């Protein structure tokens, strides 16, 4: 497999708060990797660094052999990286349809955009029922599906998902997990999945990185790590799902 995205020795600060310390990780083509860790461990910060929403202080980020860090977020989307952010950043006063179309903002190919819209609605049929409703009136789970669908509308090569299971009923979590697997396997999108639901994340990913206070402390094959004592103790203790 070939390396699609690689982060090397990245440090990130919010003012004086040191959120990432010398973080290195990579994502291969066709892979799903999971980032797990407690609140404030720095998972979202890694995604914000990749998408250019937050500047990094040290280190490098390469994508497809090209330097990514220092570029503006819109350039990074155009390069093929798309993110469904934490906390469901929907456009509240746009319809579901317009939210999804915003996802295709960087594209011009009208017929293919329509095809992709069709595919997204097939993946998340609930969105079809809510198509003309304004996004602020959707339930949390529906908003989450819409945000994932919207991220797919740019036809990304890399999809970054920040806690898609947050605040969602267990049954819906399973369905979202299945969608993520399908996006990776059938649509050939490489995925970085940030999750607090470590069990789910490790089940559907190839490899896992575990973070503690801004540092990657454990990494490896997800199937093997599920039985790793340290991981069990740190993350799988009280988890259900």
């Amino acid at each position, binding site marked *: 497999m070939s390396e699609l995205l690689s982060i090397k020795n990245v440090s990130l600060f919010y003012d004086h708060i040191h959120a990432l310390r010398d973080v290195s990780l990579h994502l291969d083509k066709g892979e799903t990797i999971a980032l797990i860790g407690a609140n404030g461990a720095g998972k979202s910060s890694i995604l914000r660094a990749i998408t250019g929403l937050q500047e990094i202080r040290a280190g490098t980020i390469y994508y497809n052999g090209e330097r990514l860090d220092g570029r*503006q977020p819109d350039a990074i989307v155009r390069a093929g990286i798309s993110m469904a952010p934490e906390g469901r*950043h929907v456009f509240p006063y746009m319809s579901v349809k*317009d939210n999804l179309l915003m996802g295709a903002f960087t594209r011009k190919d009208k017929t293919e955009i329509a095809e992709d819209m069709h595919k997204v609605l097939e993946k998340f049929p609930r969105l079809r029922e809510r198509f003309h409703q304004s996004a602020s009136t959707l339930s949390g789970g529906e908003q989450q599906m819409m945000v994932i669908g919207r991220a797919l509308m740019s036809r990304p090569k890399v999809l970054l998902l920040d806690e898609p299971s947050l605040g969602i009923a267990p049954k819906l979590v399973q369905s979202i997990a299945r969608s993520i697997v399908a996006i990776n396997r059938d649509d050939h999108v490489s995925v970085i999945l940030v999750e607090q639901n470590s069990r789910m994340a490790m089940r559907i990913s190839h490899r896992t990185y575990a973070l503690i206070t801004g540092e990657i402390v454990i990494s490896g094959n997800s199937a093997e790590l599920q039985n790793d004592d340290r991981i069990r103790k740190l993350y799988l203790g009280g988890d259900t799902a």
Partner: protein
Amino acid sequence: MEQIVVNGLYLGAQYALIALGLTLIFALMNVLNFAHGQMYVLGGYMTYLVYGKLGMPFALGLAVSALTLLAVGAVVEKFLFRPVLRKSARDESSMLLAAGLAFFFDSIILLLFGQKQHGVPKIIEGVQNWGDFTVVIPNDKIVVGVCTVLMIAAFIIFMQYTKPGRAMRALAQDRTAAQLMGVSADRYGMLGFALGAMLAGLAGGLLVATTGVSSGIGGSISIKAFLMVMIGGAGVVPGAIAGGFILGMMESFGLSYLRAYGDITYLVIFASLMVFLSIRPHGLMGKPWG
């Protein structure tokens, strides 16, 4: 009575155009543009120069006003507001910058055009009257009123149905999400600021046709613009339009009915606004860009 309503509508349309620009800038950048009234006056002088002084067509004057303010807005955003917003997370920083800009424009305008009121030849002669002179409107006010409404309509259509319009609405509703869709916050922030300034300039250009322009009115126009935006709800298009017409009506009615009691129209308007805002602090439609 009918005459008062017609005057109110005429005034309201112009006010709405001013308020739209201010609310656009606020929605996109979270900047309170205290220099909005000065931008309006600057637009007025551009039309005065082209149409009044050089004797070229009024429409060309408006175009020059629009383009000048478009450029001023773009430059001010890129070289002043953008760096300040990037370096400082505090709202006061951009507010102080805007206030400084207002004083700066005031001085420039005074220096270039002096204190004298400048009028221009009528764009069109004659008056219309209805119902045996119950309602009388000069033709030039009709032309200006129709132009204003057309500009408001054009702006709304632009925001609603074009790609840059969508980009700006997205930025106003959720800046992070918009950036993640590939909307350049820099580019569309600049465009929005430029368009907001342009609307002020166009309103100023239209004003010259019927009332002329003088250098000192920028500050009070800014305050009126803030009033309208607060009545309607900051950052909302229908709110700005509603606020514009409400203020226009209040002013028109106030000037006719309260005149007998002295110059208290604005005192009454301010007092009622304070009461209104204490009941509805977010204005009539206090939600972000829709």
